[in-house]
C-alpha cells in the first residue's frame, strides 16, 4: 500500500513538472513585452527596463521557470501586472469560494446519485426506472449555465428564495454565503447526477451478469444480499473514478456558473485577467486548477487502492 502511494506521488510530481512547464512555455511564447504593454509605447527605455527588473522579467527563462515551479510550495506567484499586488493575495479569497462551491455540489452529486442509482438498478424495468431513463438523458443534455439561468428565474424570481446577484461574502455572513451557494451548486450538480446514475446503473447490471454473482446467488444469497455484499463493491469502482473526473470538471463549469450567479470567484478573475493579459495571474490560476485536478485524481487512485486490493499490485 505504502509503495503504491509513493509510486503515485512520484507520478504526480512528474505530471506537475510537465504541466507547469507547458503552461509556462505557452505564456512565454506570446509575442509582446508585458512591460511595454503596461507603460505604453511612449515610455522611456529606462522605465521599461526598471519595470522588467521589478517583475523579474530580466532573469533567464530557466531561472524564472524554476521560480514558477517552486511557487506551488511557497505560494508566491509574483505580482499582478494590472493590480500591482501579489497574486496569491488576489487568489486566496477566490479559491475559498470555488472550493466551497465544488465540494458542495460534489456532495449533492454523491448523496443523490448513489441511492438513486442503486435503487434504479435494483428495480430495472420498474416504473421509476422507466421514468428515469428519459429524465436522465434530458438532464444530461442541459448545460449547467442554462440550468443556472432557469434556477435564477424559478427560485430567485418566482419563489424568491434568494436574491439573484446578491452574493454574500463568506467573511460577512458565513451562513448566508453557504445558503447562496446552494443554488449554483445544484445547477452544477444536476447534469452530473444524471451521468452518475446512468454509469452506476450500467455497472451494477454488468457486474450482476458475471459468473461470481451467479455463484453467490446459487449459494443462497437473495438479490438484496447479492447486491450489497458482492456486486456493489465491484460496480462502485468506475463511479469513483468518474466522480474524480466530475470534480475536475466542476472547477471548469464553475467558471461559467459564477458568471450566471455573479459570484466573484476564480472564473471571473480568470476571464478578467485574460482580457487584460495579466499573465502572472492567468498562469497561477491555471496551475492551481491543474494541481487541484491532479490531487483529485491522486485521491481517487488512493481510494481505489484502499477499496480494491487488486489495484495495489
Amino acid at each position, binding site marked *: 500500500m505504502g509503495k503504491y502511494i509513493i509510486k503515485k506521488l512520484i507520478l504526480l510530481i512528474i*505530471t506537475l513538472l*510537465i*504541466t507547469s512547464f*507547458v*503552461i509556462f512555455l*505557452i*505564456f512565454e*511564447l*506570446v509575442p509582446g513585452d508585458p512591460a511595454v504593454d503596461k507603460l505604453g509605447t511612449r515610455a522611456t527605455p529606462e522605465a521599461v527596463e526598471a519595470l522588467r527588473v521589478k517583475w523579474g522579467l530580466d532573469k533567464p527563462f530557466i531561472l524564472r521557470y524554476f521560480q514558477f515551479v517552486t511557487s506551488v510550495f511557497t505560494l508566491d506567484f509574483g505580482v499582478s501586472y494590472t493590480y500591482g499586488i501579489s497574486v496569491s493575495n488576489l487568489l486566496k479569497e477566490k479559491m475559498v469560494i470555488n472550493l466551497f462551491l465544488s465540494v458542495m455540489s460534489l456532495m449533492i452529486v454523491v448523496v443523490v446519485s448513489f441511492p438513486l442509482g442503486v435503487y434504479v438498478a435494483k428495480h430495472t424495468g420498474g416504473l421509476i426506472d422507466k421514468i428515469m431513463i428519459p429524465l436522465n*438523458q*434530458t438532464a*444530461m*443534455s*442541459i*448545460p449547467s*449555465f*442554462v440550468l443556472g*439561468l*432557469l434556477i*435564477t*428565474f424559478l427560485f430567485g*424570481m418566482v419563489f424568491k428564495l434568494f436574491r*439573484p446577484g446578491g452574493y454574500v461574502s463568506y467573511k460577512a455572513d458565513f451562513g448566508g454565503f453557504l445558503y447562496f451557494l446552494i443554488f449554483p451548486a445544484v445547477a452544477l450538480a444536476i447534469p452530473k447526477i444524471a451521468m452518475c446514475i*446512468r*454509469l452506476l446503473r*450500467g*455497472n451494477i447490471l454488468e457486474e450482476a451478469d458475471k459468473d461470481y454473482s451467479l455463484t453467490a446467488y446459487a449459494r443462497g444469497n437473495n438479490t438484496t444480499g447479492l447486491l450489497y455484499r458482492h456486486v456493489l463493491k465491484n460496480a462502485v469502482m*468506475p463511479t469513483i*473514478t*468518474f466522480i474524480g473526473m466530475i470534480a*475536475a*470538471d466542476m*472547477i*471548469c*463549469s464553475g*467558471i*461559467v456558473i459564477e*458568471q*450566471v450567479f455573479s459570484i466573484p470567484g476564480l*472564473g471571473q478573475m*480568470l*476571464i478578467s485577467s*485574460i*482580457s487584460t*493579459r495579466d499573465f502572472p495571474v*492567468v498562469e497561477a490560476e*491555471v496551475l492551481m*486548477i*491543474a494541481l487541484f*485536478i*491532479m490531487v483529485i*485524481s491522486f485521491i481517487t487512485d488512493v481510494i481505489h487502492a484502499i477499496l480494491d486490493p487488486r489495484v495495489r499490485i
Partner: protein
Amino acid sequence: MNKYKLNAQKITGIAIVSLMIIFILAGFLNRNSFDTMNKELILKGPSLLHPFGCDEFGRDILKRTQTGMGISIAVSFFSVCIGTFFGTVIGALCGYFGGIIDDILMSIIDVLFAIPSLLLALVFVSLFGSGMVQVTLALGIAIIPSFSKMMRSEFRKQRELEYVKMAKLLNISTARILFVHILPNVMETFVNCVFIAFNNCILAEAGLSFLGIGVQPPLASLGTLLSDAGGYIRSAFYMVSFPAVMLILLLLGIGLISSGESFHHAYSKRFKN
C-alpha cells in the same frame, strides 16, 4: 465489417438533430433581419410576426436563434473535424506502434487530459484572442487528448488480432492497414467518439460565448444569445427560454445518437490503462 447499429434511441436522436437542421435552414426563409435594430420592437413579447419575441435592440429572436445555432454547429463541426483528424492519427500511430514515442506522447496527452477542455480552450483564447476562428481552433485542439486516448486503446486491441497480422504478412503498407483495415473495425467507437466530441464542443462553445470570449458581435451563437438574455431575465424571460430550449434539444439529439450503452462504454474505456 460490422455495421453501425441503430436502435430506437439513436433513431430518436437522428430525428431531433434533423429537425434542428431543418429549423436552421428555415432561417433562410425568415424575412426578419439578423442584426437590424428596431426601436419600436424593443423587448416585445412573442407575436405572430415574431414568434420568439424581440430582444433589447428590437431584433427578431427567432432569426437570431436560427443563425446562432447555425454558427454554433458550424464552429463545433470544424473543431470536431480538426480534433478527429489529429486525434485519430495520433491515437492510431501510438496504439499501433507503441514504443517510446507512444510513451512520451501518451504522457503528454495524459497531462492535457487532466486539464478540462473548457480551461484549455480558455488558455488558447487568451493567447490568440477571441473570435470565431480562434474558438474553432481552440476547441479542436482541446478535444485531441481525449479523442486520441480512446482511439489508441482501440487500435492497441486490434493490433493483436489475426487479420492485422495477415495484412502485415501480405506486405500491405502501414497507412493502408491503419486506415483501411483497422479503422472500419473500430467504427462504432469512432462514431461515438465523434458525437461525444461534437456534444462537448457545442457545450464548450456555448460556454465560451456565454462568457463573452467566444464568437464576437455582430455575429452571435447560442451562448451569446443566452448571455445577452441573462440580463433581461426579470423582464423578458422568453428571451432566455427559446434559445435555451433549442440548445437543450440540440444537445439532447446529439446525446441520444451517441448514447445507449455506448456512453457508458466510452467512459469505461477511459478507465482502462
